[in-house]
């Protein structure tokens, strides 16, 4: 294993920059520019992973993102070990640690491989047929075993310390893929003056040109041409170029998502660098240049390490300078593999034989290979590859007339290359909702008519000749730029291309074999261990749609999402069903093209920035006073202000008593506020609210209740009339945006005749509630001479004035049941005013209180909280607010629904109060009520508790409840069934305190 498989003079890795990394703890040296796979292959290591189901030893079959086998974990530690990365994509750096996955105890000896021995018992769908007895064994016994053996890598267990960036951007032409066609298209579009973005998923631009040693463009080696072209593109100000960037999602309206990997290839990235950046690109035109993927051949043992795609071996050789073996056999159905043979020979690899499934292959390359004296077996097949953790030989056998397979001959080899032809990558095209069409000539699917502003170019639309590909790229790039509105004079290059004349070929399905092969395992989907037999079994069991076959066998559902397997599965299904491929169709291509990190989607929406954290201007003061906060929609509100040693109950009891006995101060800034202005303001309010507004005098306030058109309570709040044509409307904290939206909806779409306009003033005004018998005494000296006596300013009135010279709208309103004011002041001055009131309140032992005390105080008064007493199914009358509903108005939002018989049902849930028999017993909010103490499950429930508190004022507990026919049940005993007992409660009025309202009118 120590002997190097590096080929001097080949490859683009930097042999002057050795890089040391570990794989499964083994220290290994590679070079700068290597992937993990190329560096391991350079040491002769093919075994890199274990398969999903049978735990079979596996090596890479590909050199790119389509790799199904070489799946590894990279990084170390509970936070950073990242599972399921593809070794053919992982770039190595000094200190990289990688581990193999899905094996125990180690990659070379894996206990899970016992599944392989049991494989005859584990065909597709075996789990649907078994594990059903005894019934409870599924969850307890079978499923845990299945789960432990499934899964690939291990998820991190500690939070990811990295961060991820996000960016929207725009361009005229987005080119997905920077192989020959992509580069040509980008160049043409850029020359036409288009703003171009071009992205490639690998570390270097060039695609196949980076490993094509045979072709010449303008006499240049292809890699040199790439360098020349990339240099030219980079020099253009209208071009943005991205490596390590996957175009992974083609959304509606030409919104295309890219994932740029920024640090994974670096050993010690600057910690400020985002690990990845997600781009959302709105492109006028998209050019898909996503290339084609070589297809494996399906034969027994095609998964043995050492079996790989011919193009992969060529890539490893020419891009990374690695020979994947010493002695190769090549199995092909396509001419391109002959080029691989020639390059291998040139690099000193022995090509023991080429086996071609086609009866009479013929091409320039074929003749070159023959001329080089290589054994070529035509009309022949691979019967079986031998070896376990590495292939050692392969049986090649002739296909006899009539289709049977004859006796074959074993060829010794350590490398078996396969080429079933090429599958154009249709993922992005298909995601764009373009319809794929079957091409009989190429025996594959190609892009059909575009559904969006998009074009495919190059091998992803079935062009394989380099000259054609480059010309196509130029043409498509020009057209895209033109359709994007850029039709500048273009001086298009004319490239002289010499290349191997690539003929055609290809094969889909399973290779012919000798015998039934009932125990032979020929893999279609490598990672998910789906064999040709499995596909046939699915068809045998009646699964005829390709989507059913995919789901029953799980083919195409592994981390590679079927890039190498889909067409072969289709081929096998086609033979088994006896229907042509075009009548069967492909499964849907689902985004993402390759897996994308969750973190990249979430970007900076994390921690406190997950959602805006809205704070009031009083928040800093509340924090210095030790307030405990709660989230109410986006706002943080002070819930209570505990003093040392106090829990919530103690703090709330103290705060409540302070308000009842003297005065409290409360931050009500988060209330929504809407200024309703215009000559038709009152008419508009009449239509929106259940109340009547016309007669509300200037300077007066009214409690407003709003329904939805379905008749159920939507929001409430006090409304003050500031001027005949101006209302100051308040809403609940959570309802602010919704109420404004609903108002705008009616105004803009139904009542365009009204001269009235709405402006949100929620954040214009901060609101300081001063509540309690001493409220007036505290405020009076502060309001710059304003007369706020009961006579001049009775309950439910509003006046404009100043407080210490600061403009103010002063409301005399109360949500506590005590004499109260709400001081509305400009938000930036609120803290100043608050502190002034605070100082003035000190002689009265003014107490700050939070939302919890606010809730208790209002519950003592029977005031509802929309969303707590009501839940979207309560009418105004249900909520005890029937009094607010105007009987005179001909119409208002919700009126027609309220007239439905069901809305008048006497058994509707109605708001009532409850007293527990034991005065200190506080019910749990949300408990249910029953009428009889002897109810058994399932019980006949007649209501539930919406609010429940200990009332310090009353020295006992109180509760509000919604009870069926509740108002007719006054005095009745109901029961709260708890797990262990029935709690008796008495139905009472929801107003527990000062029912006559004497305390308000002082």
């Amino acid at each position, binding site marked *: 294993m120590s002997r190097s498989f590096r080929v001097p003079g080949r490859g683009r890795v930097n042999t002057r920059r050795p890089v040391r990394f570990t794989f499964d703890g083994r220290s290994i040296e590679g070079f700068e520019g290597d992937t993990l796979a190329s560096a391991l292959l350079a040491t002769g290591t093919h075994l890199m992973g274990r398969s999903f189901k049978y735990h079979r030893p596996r090596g890479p079959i590909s050199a790119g993102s389509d790799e199904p086998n070489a799946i590894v974990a990279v990084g170390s530690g509970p936070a950073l070990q*990242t599972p399921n990365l593809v070794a053919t994509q992982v770039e190595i750096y000094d200190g990289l640690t990688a581990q193999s996955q899905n094996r125990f105890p180690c990659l070379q000896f894996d206990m899970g491989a016992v599944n392989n021995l049991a494989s005859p018992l584990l065909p597709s769908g075996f789990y649907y047929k078994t594990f059903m007895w005894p019934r409870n064994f599924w969850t307890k016994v079978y*499923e845990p075993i299945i789960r432990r053996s499934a899964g690939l890598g291990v998820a991190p267990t500690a939070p990811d310390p990295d961060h991820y960036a996000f960016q929207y951007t725009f361009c005229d032409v987005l080119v997905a893929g920077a192989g020959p066609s992509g580069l040509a298209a980008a160049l043409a579009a850029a020359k036409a003056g288009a703003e171009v973005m071009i992205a490639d998923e690998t570390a270097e631009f060039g695609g196949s040109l980076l490993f094509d040693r045979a072709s010449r463009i303008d006499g240049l080696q292809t890699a040199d041409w790439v360098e020349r072209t990339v240099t030219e593109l980079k020099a253009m100000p209208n071009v943005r170029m991205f490596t390590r960037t996957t175009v992974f999602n083609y959304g509606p309206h030409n919104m295309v998502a890219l994932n740029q990997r920024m640090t994974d290839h670096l050993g010690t990235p600057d910690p400020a660098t985002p690990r990845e950046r997600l781009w959302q690109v709105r492109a006028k035109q998209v050019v898909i240049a996503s290339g084609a993927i070589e297809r494996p051949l399906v034969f027994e043992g095609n998964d043995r390490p050492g079996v790989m795609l011919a193009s992969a071996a060529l890539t490893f050789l020419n891009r990374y300078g690695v020979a994947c073996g010493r002695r190769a056999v090549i199995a092909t159905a396509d001419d391109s593999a002959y080029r691989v043979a020639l390059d291998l020979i040139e690099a000193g690899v022995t090509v023991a034989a080429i086996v071609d499934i086609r009866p009479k292959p013929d091409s320039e390359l074929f003749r070159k290979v023959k001329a080089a004296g290589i054994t070529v077996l035509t009309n022949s097949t691979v019967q079986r590859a031998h070896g376990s953790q590495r292939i050692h030989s392969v049986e090649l056998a002739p296909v006899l007339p009539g289709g049977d397979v004859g006796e074959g001959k074993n060829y010794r080899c350590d490398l078996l290359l396969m080429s079933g032809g090429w599958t154009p990558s249709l993922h992005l095209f298909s995601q764009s909702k373009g319809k794929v069409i079957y091409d009989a000539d190429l025996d594959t699917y190609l892009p059909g008519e575009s559904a969006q502003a998009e074009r495919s170019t190059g091998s992803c639309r079935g062009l394989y000749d380099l000259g054609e590909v480059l010309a196509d790229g130029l043409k498509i790039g020009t057209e895209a730029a033109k359709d994007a509105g850029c039709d500048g004079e273009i001086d298009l290059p004319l490239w002289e291309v010499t290349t191997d004349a690539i003929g055609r070929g290809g094969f889909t399905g399973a290779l012919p074999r000798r015998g*039934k092969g009932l125990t032979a395992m020929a893999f279609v989907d490598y990672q998910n261990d789906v064999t040709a037999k499995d596909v046939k079994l699915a068809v045998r069991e009646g699964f005829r749609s390709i989507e059913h076959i995919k789901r029953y066998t799980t083919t195409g559902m592994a981390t590679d999402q079927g890039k190498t397997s889909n067409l072969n599965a289709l081929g096998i299904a086609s033979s088994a069903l006896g229907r042509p491929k075009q009548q069967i169709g492909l499964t849907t291509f689902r985004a993402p093209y390759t897996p994308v990190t969750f973190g990249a989607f979430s970007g900076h929406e994390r921690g406190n920035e997950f959602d805006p954290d809205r704070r009031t201007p009083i928040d800093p003061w509340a924090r210095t006073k030790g307030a405990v906060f709660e989230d109410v929609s986006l706002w943080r509100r002070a819930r209570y202000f505990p003093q040392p040693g106090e829990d919530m109950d103690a703090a709330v009891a103290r705060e409540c008593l302070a308000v009842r006995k003297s005065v409290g101060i409360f931050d009500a800034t988060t209330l929504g506020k809407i200024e309703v202005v215009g000559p038709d303001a009152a008419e508009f309010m009449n239509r929106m609210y259940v109340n009547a507004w016309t007669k509300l005098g200037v300077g007066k306030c009214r409690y407003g209740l709003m329904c939805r058109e379905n008749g159920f309570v939507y929001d409430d709040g006090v409304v003050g009339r500031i001027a005949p044509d101006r209302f100051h409307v308040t809403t609940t904290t959570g309802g602010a945006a919704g109420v404004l939206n609903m108002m705008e909806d009616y105004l803009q779409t139904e009542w365009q005749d009204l001269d009235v306009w709405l402006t949100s003033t929620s954040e214009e005004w901060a609101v300081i509630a001063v509540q309690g018998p001493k409220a007036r005494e505290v405020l009076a000296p502060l309001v710059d001479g304003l007369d706020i006596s009961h006579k001049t300013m009775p309950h439910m009135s509003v006046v404009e004035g100043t407080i210490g010279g600061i403009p103010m709208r002063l409301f005399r309103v109360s949500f506590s049941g005590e004499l109260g004011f709400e001081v509305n002041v400009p938000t930036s001055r609120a803290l100043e005013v608050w502190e002034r009131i605070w100082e003035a309140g000190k002689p009265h032992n003014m107490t700050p209180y939070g939302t919890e005390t606010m809730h208790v105080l209002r519950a003592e008064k029977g005031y509802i909280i929309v969303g707590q007493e009501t839940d979207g199914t309560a009418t105004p009358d249900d909520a005890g607010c029937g009094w607010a509903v105007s009987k005179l108005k001909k119409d208002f939002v919700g009126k027609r629904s309220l007239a439905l018989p069901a809305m008048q049902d006497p058994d509707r849930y109605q708001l009532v109060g409850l007293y527990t028999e034991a005065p200190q017993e506080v019910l749990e909010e949300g408990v249910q009520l029953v009428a009889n103490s002897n109810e058994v499950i399932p019980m006949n429930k007649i209501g539930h508790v919406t609010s429940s508190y200990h009332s310090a004022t009353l020295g006992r507990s109180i509760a509000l409840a919604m009870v069926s026919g509740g108002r007719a049940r006054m005095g009745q005993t109901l029961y709260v069934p708890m797990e262990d007992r029935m709690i008796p409660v008495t139905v009472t009025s929801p107003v527990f305190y000062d029912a006559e309202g004497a305390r308000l009118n002082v």
Partner: protein
Amino acid sequence: MERFSALSLAKKALGGHLGWKPQWRSVEQPKKAYDIIIVGGGGHGLGAAYYLAKQHGLRNIAVIERGWLAGGNTARNTTIIRSNYLFDESSSYYEHSLKLWENLSQELNYNVMFSQRGCLMVAHTVHDVQVFKRHVHANRLNGIDNEWLSAEEAKEFCPPLNISPNIRYPVLGASLQRRAGTARHDAVAWGFARAASDMGVDIIENCEVTGINRGPDGAVTGVETTKGTVNAKKVAVSAAGHSSVVLEMAGIRLPLQSNPLQALVSEPVKPAFPTIVMSNTIHAYISQSDKGEMVIGAGTDSYVSYTQRGGLHIPAETLAAICELFPMFRRLRMMRSWGGITDNTPDRSPITAKTSVPGLYVNCGWGTGGFKATPGAANLFAWTIAKNEPHPINAPFTIERFRDGVMIDEAAAAAVAH
């Protein structure tokens, strides 16, 4: 029907698995007439056929499917099964279903992998706590298991859960229904198809209903399809997102909107997530499949669409929420995403009912929650079709409830129909 068992599997293994028969009869061409036609070959439609045959002795039935069997929402959901709904009407319906789930594998002789891993519904605000406790108590009195857990208890049940007080919306607690779980979605449909087919039900795929035929008396006489006219006295529509389209053929307007719903899975990893977690407040829904994929439900787009896709910003929002609740999953990767078409009613509760057209029945409006109801809805729909009247459990779930103002508003009551 050949019974599935470990023994049958072993026997067939000896024969290289060549001896298996199709799981259901694939009928290419429908007969001229059936007693009952079910439009829509998803889990609900196939299940209805099964129960009609099994419990009501009606076997001359066709299930007509536009595409491939169970290719709609049956194939596109996140497989959460629970019954902890607030209102009695809903919880009875979903509990009826949950009870059927508990025996479904045995009943169908098809392992639907119903895994009762529990469902945690996480509370982030005081309001959430109040609402969830109301659910817990209401469920308990109905004999439906649902319990309240503190944040610490929730973490014990689901160790990856982030209960740090320092996140934007700290976890204040959670309700837990232990009997809730997940199942293998395809298996349910295939199991029903196999059992129904065995009792004589014809299953016709790739056959689109293009019209509903009615006699002079207005009653249903059959359907037009892309495979010709098929007569039947009863036509039962179970077409999820396409219900409006099919019912419109009989001139019936429904209170439905079809909206895109997206979901996604991560790459498979070893067991790292023991249960289902739902957070309605920050829109995160996650469980881990038997295969090891994290199965994540995203939000609904707000507009009507039949495209089976939506904007990427919707799953992005969900993943941000997932990464807040489970910050160790930030390095996991989205492997596959997809969209479905949900049919949503104004009160987010379904319709399983007769229609105003004699002989025409509809089961729709399941929104984002239809999978969990599969056996229950199928069972009650079959009852309704067979007896031409609803079962007491689905009696409230009529179209007329919107006219009468007797909605079953789980959404308004701050539950979410996931």
